């Protein structure tokens, strides 16, 4: 990995179980400030579990997650969110019965004074949302819901964004918007962990790459070294 400075996020021997099923075992990696990590793997490899464990949704059995010297292991999700880790979950990460505006308000509950500016920023990035601010989020199209989800990341300044399969089920044009938005976040100095089905696009975007296989870290290294042969071996595509 390209470790030039001390890493922003350090994950050591992270192990997660769902009931009796082992979902992740001894996963170790780190993310440097202002870099992007692509997490790749086949279905059921543990990518989403990794994201959920990092954001505190599922408690790890063992291992540690440290953000810039701050031990996040076992902390509740709201506390991890306040520490600066923003998880954009797989599927539609919006509150369906709240309006667009209310969704944006929910994203800024921690900082009410900065709210007008943040909402303004969200509308500048995604003007389509401004026209629909009174509409219920559940009635938006899939792409618009994903925009809203992304707006939650772009309107504030998290330290790390975990983007879980954001391009899933989107039209190609919207996939471009997703990548463009994450690039924008990076430009603002945010580190990104990207879980993605479009392996090649993700690798082009990321600095480093982590390949998961059956809950274990199978390969990790610079994104440039993750060539087609490697991907074929682990992802079968």
């Amino acid at each position, binding site marked *: 990995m390209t470790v030039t400075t001390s890493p922003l996020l350090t994950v050591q021997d992270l192990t997660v179980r*769902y*009931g*009796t099923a082992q979902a992740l075992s001894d996963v170790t990696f780190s993310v440097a400030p202002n870099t992007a990590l692509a997490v790749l793997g086949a279905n059921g490899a543990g990518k*989403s579990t990794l994201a*959920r464990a990092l*954001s*505190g*949704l*599922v408690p790890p059995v063992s291992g540690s997650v440290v953000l810039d010297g701050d031990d996040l292991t076992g902390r*509740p*999700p*709201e506390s991890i*969110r*306040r520490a600066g880790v*923003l*998880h954009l*979950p*797989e*599927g*539609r*990460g*919006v*509150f*369906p*019965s*709240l309006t667009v505006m*209310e969704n944006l*308000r*929910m*994203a800024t*509950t*921690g900082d*009410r004074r900065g709210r007008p500016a943040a909402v303004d920023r969200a509308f500048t990035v995604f003007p389509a949302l401004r026209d629909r601010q009174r509409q219920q989020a559940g009635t938006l199209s899939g792409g618009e819901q994903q925009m809203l989800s992304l707006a*939650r990341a772009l309107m504030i300044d998290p330290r790390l964004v975990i983007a879980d399969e954001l391009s899933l089920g989107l039209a190609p044009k919207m996939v471009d918007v997703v990548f463009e938005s994450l690039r924008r976040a990076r430009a603002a100095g945010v580190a990104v962990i990207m879980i993605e089905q479009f392996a090649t696009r993700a690798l082009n975007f990321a600095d480093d790459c982590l390949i998961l296989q059956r809950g274990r870290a199978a390969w990790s290294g610079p994104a440039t070294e993750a060539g087609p042969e490697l991907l074929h071996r682990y992802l079968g595509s």
Partner: protein
Amino acid sequence: MLSYVVAGLALGAIYAIAAASLVVTHVSSGVFNFAFGAMAFAVARFYYFLHIEQGWPLPLAAVVAIGLFGPALGVLLYAVLFRHLRQRSPLVKIAATIGLSVALPPLVNLALGQLVNVTAPGLAPQPVAVYRPFGTVVDANQLITYAGLALVLLVGTALLRFTDTGLRVRALVDSPALTAMSGVSPARVSLGVWAFSALLAGLAGVLVAPTAGLSVEGMTFLMAAAFAAVVAARLRSLPTAVGVALAMGVVTSVIQRYLDPESALSAQIVPSVPFLFMLAFLLAHALRGRAGDAPTGGVLDRAIRTESGTAPTATTGSGYVAPLLTIAVVACLPLILDDFWTGLVATGIALATALLSCTLVTGEGGMIWLCQITFAGLGALFAADLATNSGWPPLAAVLVSAVCVVPVGVVLGLLTIRLGNLYVALVTLTFGLLAQNLIFMRDRFYNSGQGIYMPRPEWALDNRTFAFLSLAVFCALGVFAVNLRRSTAGLAVTAVRWSETGSRTLGLGVVPVKVLVSAVATFVAAVGGGFLALAYQSALPDSFSPFTGLVWLAVLVTVGARPVVGALVAGLAFAVLPSVFQTYLPTRWAEVPVIMFGFGAVMLARDPEGVLAMHARQLRTVSGWLRTRRTPAADKPSAPTPQGELV
């Protein structure tokens, strides 16, 4: 006419406050609060204590009781109970809140003293001022009730719609996981919701006290009536709940204008109005297929929910020693105890048979029926009627009446087959309340509370022989239940309990399986009821009230709803423990067993398998520990058995 509407609106306003509180807590925390009536009683009783017994001025007493004590109670209950319930199975959620409703009122009575006179003042200063606008009569209590509802609606709507706090509550309803990921603690939001809900419960309790009386029964009835509005709102929609609650109050009041106040029929119909409402709405929802289990939370919440109970703990074949030993001990009791205690043991065994039906329908079938006591009551009354009025031999009467009750259970089973768990619980409770009002209270059966005489068989007149007879019947039905569990039909029942969808894909018909379970369970309940009547030598309608049924269920799930012998232990505990306390301890402790039963059910929130399973697990751990100590070379001690939930 107008005066009826005015009175009805006051009643409806109280229903509306209760219904609104029930809906808000249900959508935000996934828990349907069966203990609402008990909480209302606790606050109203505390208000009475401050205002009447301690002589505090009315406004101060009202503010302290409703504004401080109520929310504090809500916070406390959240911390010890509701917090643990979100991820539990529907049965545990229902049983634990029922347990609370069973335990809380006697606890309050223990602390503040039992009230002999249940008339209580409302929030209006005494003497209550009366106004006569437009030729009708309105008293100050009614005006305060209207104002209370208006205030609750205004403040509630403003809070929910326009504040950040309300936004958080609504976000929590959508998805707890996403709420937490937005940096908002779901636990703190829930805490606030429960505190507010307890405040509303207290308000409803204080407001209803002048008309319904400051009694547990009055408050529980208020709660049960408010359920109707909540069901109409499909457990979610606040405006519908409030609207239907008001309509219900008005109908209840206006209908009295057209009924002869002297007739027995009107005394039965008036309290039944809310339940008829509920039945109508349930049928409407069921016909439109909109009464299934509403998924709680969002996609993400379901994805991260760990399915506990993937590895069910062995309930069959886990040894015959303990059950046989228990039965042997119970069989010895009539031989060593005197006649009084033998009579209680016999009652306990008869009750165990009735509880066995809960084991079958809830523990085995996974259907949360709250009306097994009603089937027992029907069995008892019909049997007594046959034996006394038609001269049948008692045992034949019990058997025939049990067979006659079976179709009722089957029809109820068919009606509720497509309903979600919570709806099933509510329908069966409603059915029980309706049967109580419309059948048990008929003069033919009620007989001014004396019930119908039920003779025992000639050869089992003394308590000892009768105890053995009941035990034999219990064992026969218990063996039948165990065999049913192990048969192919029983496997199908288990399969349906674990996953209805999975069973359908296997080609198992869910309908025949559920009908089988409900038929068998109804039969067993009715036989148990018949034996209870034999034990008392009278079929007493009052002893088969649905609220007593809730205590039954609390006792049973506390002991364990799955093992057959659990029903025996629960039955004996229910029948014998109160007398033990009455005989050997001061009278004011008489209610302690009920409190224990209730708290036992509350503890399910922590350990969903019941006391028997908990002790069995502890014993296994100890014996495993001893074994590993004896053989130090053995590998590491066995991991504790994974927790499996009941349903």
